[in-house]
């Protein structure tokens, strides 16, 4: 999922302090699962902002909505008939949702309520960690199912570096050395000899380096 973290309320207040009518829009997908921007977080933020403005003697009306997804036209359309009532939208979706909202409702200011962090997994309740950087050319088949691009601090394709210590990364003792994980799993899969194959220089043009990316699927287009 896309993992996000709630922005500090102070920062959000700074964004929206000059508006009279606000819509706080949550998203039912990733940000709900990682407890940063779902219905519950919308409710808490709305309540906090209402109290803040009231205490400041400002009359600000705040409505709440949580959409199924903010990265799809279909669900974003659900608020079209009332979007004009609002001076601004505070979207608690990931950066994708915030932007899609901004694109769709061109004349309404849209602000982010979360910091979008990464694509990751829920290791345990309350702990999420990165697993993918969307490089556009997956190499997991060659690295025993563990991604050195997202999980090695130096994204080494031929690791580990000399800083790997007792299975941990040199930059942080709580961080697993991705290459230690790769090696352990290669052994488990009886493929340790593959370690000595040199991973060729990567074509990063399908990654961020190649500019904003787009997938076009003629077979599924209408």
């Amino acid at each position: 999922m896309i993992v996000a973290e709630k922005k500090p309320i102070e920062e959000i207040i700074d964004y929206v302090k000059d508006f009279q009518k606000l819509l706080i829009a949550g998203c039912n997908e990733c940000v709900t699962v990682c407890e940063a921007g779902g219905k519950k977080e919308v409710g808490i933020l709305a309540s906090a902002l209402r109290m803040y403005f009231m205490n400041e003697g400002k009359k600000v009306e705040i409505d709440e909505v949580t959409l199924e997804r903010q990265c799809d036209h279909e669900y974003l359309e659900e608020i079209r008939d009332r979007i004009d009532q609002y001076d601004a939208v505070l979207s608690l979706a990931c950066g994708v949702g915030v932007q899609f909202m901004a694109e769709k409702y061109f004349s309404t200011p849209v602000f982010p309520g979360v910091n979008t962090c990464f694509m990751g997994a829920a290791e345990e309740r309350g702990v999420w960690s990165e697993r993918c950087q969307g490089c556009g050319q997956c190499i997991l088949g060659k690295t025993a199912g563990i991604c050195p691009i997202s999980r090695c601090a130096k994204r080494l394709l031929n690791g580990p570096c000399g800083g790997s210590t007792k299975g941990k990364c040199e930059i942080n003792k709580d961080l697993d050395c991705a290459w230690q994980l790769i090696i352990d799993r290669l052994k488990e899969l009886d493929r340790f000899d593959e370690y000595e194959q040199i991973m060729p220089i990567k074509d990063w043009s399908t990654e961020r380096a190649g500019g904003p990316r787009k997938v076009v699927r003629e077979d599924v287009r209408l």
Partner: protein
Amino acid sequence: MRINYPGTIRIVRLPCTGKVDIIHILRAFEKGADGVYVVGCLEGECRFENGNLQARKRVDQAKKILDTIGIGGERVWMYNLSSSDGPRFAEYAVEMTEKIKELGPNPLKKAKEKMAA
């Protein structure tokens, strides 16, 4: 056992303090409560293992939010006691009431009056 405690307290019963959410605490203030306190079982004695510990975390988060928005985090507290300890319950009620009296009314009340005027 008949023990008196301040009549200004409104009790919301829950099966376990683990049910308390931040939004419940915030809503209480939004609706004009001057203070909120959560009374859970003793730590380590939760029937549902960690309900009271979860409650404490949520109380702490609510404190932070209330501090940020100018209502004051010291209006929310978490207490723990044994479920059969009636005298302690009354003691906490008195203590909490005194704390809140010292802090004065929920600032939103004044703000509301001003805005209405």
